[in-house]
């Protein structure tokens, strides 16, 4: 059973007591736990042991939570190949999983496992200790069968941390607030342009899911989110450029894999990095370096388009309470994605929330293709995190009533 884990703590312990006492939590192996092997699934971090706890780890333990171990992860947390998250959730080896969400990994993991998933607003949770890849879009994601466990965890890990300067100045959302629990009439918008890129079959199951949502008292209407297809392109360009910079530190000088028998430092860099990275990460980094060194204009353009897309999304969220999207595509399997293009196809519906830094909830059991759960995402306005989790609570009960 433990082959989905990368590291199992033989004597897991909390450092304090609180709302998380008795909760088992698994983390991804790109989240720093002191003295644990923390390789982020890459030879580039061969034998690397974290020197400090990530802020989230420290906070979980201080509130009674127990970190049972770290799961196997795709290289540097990019994509979901070889990821052990879905298995440990499905096999109930943990009450909750905290993993990274660069373009939707934590939400698709939750959808695959048929549980709730949540990615908070950018800047609400400290990234200190997260071995990240795409700093402007990455986030932690929390997955659990229980929305209340997610709320308790979010409440425990969020809030200001002087070690992460990119955090928001706003005070943290009150995740335990009960106001969202009986949401009154929630207005949900379905972006027509997202609908348009789906296959007929997908549209069919999507509509059925929306009907279920309506049955739970949510007012569903169609809205327009122009240039929806550009979210993937923007994420691909900006993400690869940021990844190329983030991975620049993996040079084999201070830690990680170093190639033997090299002629000089340049040769050492080339061979060490050449040996350390797998094909997917290598091509992603290569693409980022291309935009950095050879086609910077495209990167700048992507930044401008990003601003436009974010504004479009925020404007829509002034009119409706949430935007609804499936989590997964039927024709593209995230776990089987081998190329950068495969990855972007499989994550095309989850990555808009990363581009815009918005909070998003993944709800199980609504958009179903037979027994296969495609997952349903509800994207909320910036800092509307508490409201989304209140809604999650409501939907979990409503869904139960339906079944």
């Amino acid at each position: 059973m433990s082959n989905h884990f990368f590291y199992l703590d033989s004597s897991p312990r909390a450092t304090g007591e609180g709302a998380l006492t008795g909760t088992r939590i698994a983390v991804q192996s790109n989240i720093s736990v002191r003295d644990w092997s923390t390789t982020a699934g890459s030879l580039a971090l061969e034998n690397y042991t974290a020197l400090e706890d990530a802020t989230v780890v420290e906070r979980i333990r201080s509130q009674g939570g127990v970190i049972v171990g770290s799961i196997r992860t795709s290289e540097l947390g990019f994509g979901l190949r070889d990821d052990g998250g879905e298995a440990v959730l499905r096999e109930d080896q943990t009450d909750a999983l905290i993993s990274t969400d660069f373009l939707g990994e934590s939400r698709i993991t939750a959808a695959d496992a048929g549980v709730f998933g949540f990615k908070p607003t950018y800047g609400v949770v400290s990234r200190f200790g997260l071995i990240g890849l795409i700093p402007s879009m990455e986030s932690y994601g929390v997955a659990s069968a229980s929305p209340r466990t997610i709320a308790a965890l979010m409440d425990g890990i969020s809030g200001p941390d002087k070690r992460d300067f990119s955090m928001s100045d706003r005070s943290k959302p009150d995740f335990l607030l009960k106001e969202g629990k009986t949401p009154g009439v929630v207005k949900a918008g379905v972006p027509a342009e997202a609908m348009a890129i789906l296959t007929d079959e997908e549209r069919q199951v999507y509509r059925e899911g929306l009907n279920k949502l309506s049955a739970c008292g949510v007012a569903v209407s169609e809205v327009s989110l122009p240039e929806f297809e550009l979210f993937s392109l923007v994420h691909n360009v900006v993400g690869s450029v940021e990844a190329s910079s983030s991975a620049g530190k993996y040079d084999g000088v201070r830690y990680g894999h170093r190639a033997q028998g090299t002629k000089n430092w340049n040769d050492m860099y080339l061979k060490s990095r050449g040996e350390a990275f797998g094909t997917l990460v290598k091509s992603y980094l290569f693409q980022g370096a291309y935009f950095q060194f050879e086609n910077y204009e495209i990167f700048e353009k992507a930044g401008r388009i990003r601003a436009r897309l974010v504004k479009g999304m925020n404007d829509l969220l002034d009119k409706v309470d949430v935007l609804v999207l499936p989590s997964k595509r039927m024709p593209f399997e995230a776990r089987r994605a081998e190329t950068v293009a495969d990855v972007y196809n499989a994550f095309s519906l989850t990555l808009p929330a990363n581009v815009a830094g918005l909070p998003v909830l993944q709800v199980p059991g609504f958009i179903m293709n037979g027994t296969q759960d495609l997952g349903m995402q509800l994207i909320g306005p910036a800092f509307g995190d508490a409201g989304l989790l209140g809604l999650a609570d409501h939907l979990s009960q409503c869904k139960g009533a339906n079944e």
Partner: protein
Amino acid sequence: MMDYEAVIGLEIHVELNCPTKMFCDCPNRPGDEPNKNTCPICLWLPGAIPQFGYEALEKATLACLALNCEIQEKSAFDQKVYYYPDLPKGFQLSQAHYPLARNGWLNITGEDGQPRRLRIHHIHMEEDVAKLIHEMEGKTPVSLVDFNRAGAPLIEIVTEPDMRSPHDAMEFVRLLRTQIRYAGSSECSLESGTMRVDANISIRPKGTGQMNTKVEVKNMNSIRHVGDAVAYEIERQKTCLAEGEEMTMHTRLWDPVKKVTTAMRGKFAGPCVPDPSVPPIVISREWLEDKISSLPEMPAGKAERFREQFGLTEDETSQLCTDKDTADYFEQVMAFPVPARTATHWLTTQLMPLLRERGETLAVCGVTPSRFADLLGFLDRNEVNANSAKEILARLFETDLPVKAVVDQGGFGQVSDASELEGIVARILEGNAPAVADYHNGVSKALGFLIGQAMQASGGKANPKIVRELLLKRLSAI
């Protein structure tokens, strides 16, 4: 041969004297035992996030203000991407697109004695990189990395290509150093590496506005070297041009021993990508006003005030005001009833050389402004003469006794009592008949000789003015 002129611009790195590094809390002491001042952030271990330090912003802002720059309301850090073992993360955090300050200037005195305004294009903040040490381990060459300097706070000052001569470049660097020292942001020492000057040099036919291919010259370890390197490079380029060689953009190293520049590498410019982890810096009007008001009086203003307030000359005030400690010391001395000119003269020609000789500074030496003023008071009242005052000054370094006690104990009191001096003068005239004869025969040196003899006989304590008067009176009577 065509008449050429040089076009020179400088890129000057100044290490800010903040207590900590720019993005972490490690001590900013690059000289410590190698790799002592490091942490996960400046080693850029996985999971680290840069934490921009407030002190660096403050010191950088003060320096920019001292260089007459416009502080930008919004500035931001970029990643300057290149791969080198001295750079722990594959990029250097630097402000490439939105620098902290723009449009500065300094007024220097040109070679012709006329004031010249040299413009500063912009000033940006950036972090320093680690230091590489290349050694031999037995027969194997090894490269070691010392990360103490990695992440140290720097500003880079980029000038407009307004300089035309080695003189301009040296004067600019000198004045820049004075201004930044006044602001308290850095020691600006080329010798110890807290300031590094790179010069971009090209030449063009005089009077044209051409901007030709420039060559970058590095590794000048003193202001004199800046002048020498620039002068050498101008001549080298003229020779190249005369020989029909085409100029290529590259970097050259100044060799201070051979006094030549040698080609090092092609100039490499990597990409600069906005950094997503360090938030943009937004400066409020109130904060900036506060910095402006905390800036001390700058040397030019101070010199002008000294000229008005104390009636000093331009030469005198420039001697006093180049170094802020000297100027401050002078002002403290002037709180006592001492003539300004005497104070200036004695400070710059006596006290300062003594300090240099002893390797001390005004701030810590035992000759406090009040003791120095006391001494000058004795001199001004003719109670000691200049020679004695020099000796007393030297003794003040060794003792904490009041000046009066040193004067009394050393028997330095000047003899101005005519009756006492009459006797000495009479003896000298008796014992130096040939000199007396010379005097009467019009040999001008004779009087000076007789005064000297009388001074010596008094043990150096006689008031030379009274000795002279007495001698002249007696000689005219002979």
